[in-house]
């Protein structure tokens, strides 16, 4: 019996020679290399985005997914890396991304019209190799369609990105990749910050371009992380009261158009500031 199994083992090893070094030994799980996403509070806890792994962000509209994506793209392109964005519903705003610091020259933008195109494009990009980050934005794709993606597709994507230095980032309404993801974050919009909240009449002055939305707070829950379990352990002790033991982190998003007033007073528009300064 023993000699038979030994012969079988030898046969398997010789058949897989050159492809798998030691088929009967468990592969040693290396801790993945992580890089910052450009949001310090998240990077401190999660360790950043894992290279060679799938990171999934999910949340509803205005939950901050796109802001996270732009921040990550800005960080990667600033590091001279080439990134790719597969936009399933053609909703990427290059002007906003450029303002956020993304170098558009280093960004390959694939404008898809449906989910199938997006999945095929990501597959081609991952097998092409050489990208620092490949992001697939499924945020505007109906959740029922994304839910129908078979799990083997996510496994295939994870397998394609494994052992590479590429970060695969997926944005969606709901979590779908399950165990294929190395890092899963749920994002949720909290209170928005507005200038002129009490304004009762429309502005008489027009500004081009301008915005009175100062920003909003995003609450992030770390659903899964294979990189920084220790930090998550500490995070459990610092959960927000009344949040049902959720690992919530908060960071603020800011528009860059209206200067923030450091005082507690309501921020004013530039032209109104000037008018108040001038007693005459």
């Amino acid at each position, binding site marked *: 019996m023993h000699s038979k199994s030994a012969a079988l083992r030898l046969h398997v090893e010789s058949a897989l020679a050159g492809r798998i070094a030691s088929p009967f030994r468990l592969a040693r799980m290396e801790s993945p290399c992580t890089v910052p996403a450009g949001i310090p509070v998240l990077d401190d806890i999660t360790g950043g985005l894992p290279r060679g792994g799938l990171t999934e962000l999910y949340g509803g509209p205005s939950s901050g997914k796109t802001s996270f994506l732009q921040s990550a793209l800005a960080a990667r392109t600033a590091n001279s890396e080439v990134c790719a964005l597969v936009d399933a519903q053609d909703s990427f705003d*290059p002007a906003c991304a450029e303002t956020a610091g993304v170098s*558009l020259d280093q960004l390959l933008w694939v404008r898809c019209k449906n989910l199938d195109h997006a999945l095929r494009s990501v597959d081609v990009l991952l097998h092409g190799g*050489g990208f620092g980050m490949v992001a697939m934005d499924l945020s505007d794709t109906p959740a029922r369609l994304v839910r129908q993606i078979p799990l083997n597709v996510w496994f295939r994507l994870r397998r394609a990105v494994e052992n590479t230095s590429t970060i695969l980032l997926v944005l969606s309404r709901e979590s779908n990749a399950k165990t294929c993801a190395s890092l899963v974050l749920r994002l949720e919009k909290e209170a928005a910050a507005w200038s002129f909240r009490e304004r009762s009449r429309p502005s008489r002055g027009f500004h081009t371009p301008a915005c009175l939305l100062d920003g909003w707070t995003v609450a992030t829950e770390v659903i899964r992380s294979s990189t920084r379990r220790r930090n998550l352990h500490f995070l459990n002790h610092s959960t927000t009261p009344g949040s049902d033991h959720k690992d919530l982190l908060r960071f603020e998003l800011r528009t*860059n158009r209206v200067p923030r007033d450091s005082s507690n007073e309501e921020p004013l528009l530039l032209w109104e500031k000037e008018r108040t300064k001038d007693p005459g």
Partner: protein
Amino acid sequence: MSFVAIFVPNFTFQAIVRCAPELRIEPVAVIEGQPPTYRVIAFNRLAEKLGVTRGMTKANAERFQQVQIRHRSKSLENSAHQALLDAAWSVSSRVEDAAPDTLLLDLSGLARLFGTQEEIAERILSRTSELGMDAHVAVSANVETARIVARALSGVTVVPDGQEARFLETLPVGMLSPSPELAEIFERWGVTTCMSLASLPVLSLSERVGQEGVHLATLASGKGNRPLVLAQSSDSFEEWFELDDAVDNLEPLSFLLGRLLQQLSVRVSRRALAIAAIHVTFELQTSFESTVLSARETLHRKPLPRTFSSTLNLPVPSQDTAALLKLLRLRLQAEPPGAPVQKIHMLAEPGRSRAAQTGLFLPASPDPQKLELTLARIAAVVGENNVGSPQMLDTHRPDAFHMQKFSVPPAAAPVREQHPETQTGFRVFRPALPAWVQLQGKIPIQVAFQGMPGKVVRASGPWRTSGDWWEDQPWQEDAWDLEIHFLSESPPAVGLYRVSYNARQEKWWVRGVYD
């Protein structure tokens, strides 16, 4: 000083076989002329064994069932000649284009580069063999002797210095290419070999057959050296392929394209260059129905295209035939010729091979050649205009950008400063969603779009932009940033949207959502 002569025997036949190597093992006869008086002008040894002779009519040649009949192709001969020149220029820059099947090279100063005369001749022979042609190569101190010996003897022949006459003495006079009249005279005299011609007294020969006879006698004695008439080096790399039966399927077509690419790649690489762009032109076969239709409706319709062209520009010159073929296939899949292909013309633009020094500490970036293939594959899925790098336009018009072809930027790009705060992101709805908006004192209080009614919690605006009023497509809109509470959603959702009022259309649109 020594010279090399390259001679391709049966050039007309070899030019055809070069593009169709499978014909090498079959009896082939090449015909030329006007229908119906086609005559056999060339054939191979297998056809000769079956009984095919020069001047035989096409009808007679067709009586041999196994013999493959091919028409003479000037374009194929031209391609073969250019390929032969490339092989010669890859060894020496001093080349005389003596005839379509004969080239003469000056070997002065090449010993340090390539070795002895035998080694140089072997190198030339292997290069012509790579190009799909069997050549004769002869080396001699006398250029004319080299040419005559190459015509007469196969393989590599090196004529030692001073022994030219001894090598020529047994060769027939026909090798000197005399005029038909002179050849007849020599035959009547019984002068059949070069030695017998060289032994004739020059004065008597001059009196009887003139200067041509004297010149031939000089050649036959291994004398009469002359300088080369150098050919200008050309950077044109063209290949042709003519099909007996038109091809309308991509699979066999890509097989032929691969063969042409291989030939071009060999030619280009022999000149230490790479392929920077490929222009493919197909001569299309118009169907009978199309011909009748076009003849009937000539006055009403445009004539059908007879050719199809496609250009493939590469970001970096490449010699990778497999990758080039894949790119061509993807291009033809996206833009098929539309009719069966009768003739293929492929032109390669040469470029210097990429020489790049990568750094140990630089982040990895896609290989330009591989990236081109990746982009072509994605373009085949999403369309060519939907893949690239966005570039902002110099205007305040909302969502104004254009897509440009993506290429890998230089690796050592400067690292820019990061923004201290995380900037808000914005998602654009393309096209903008039509919305219903209820105002109270000019401020939106209720919004509905995509069948979802919502209450406006916060509003800021209007932010008026306008422009291009001096052009055909002006725009003018008042933008509002709205925090909308959708009660119909379960659980109730709150979103930050940008809603704009188009004053020209007098309509409300949802431009996008802050995210």
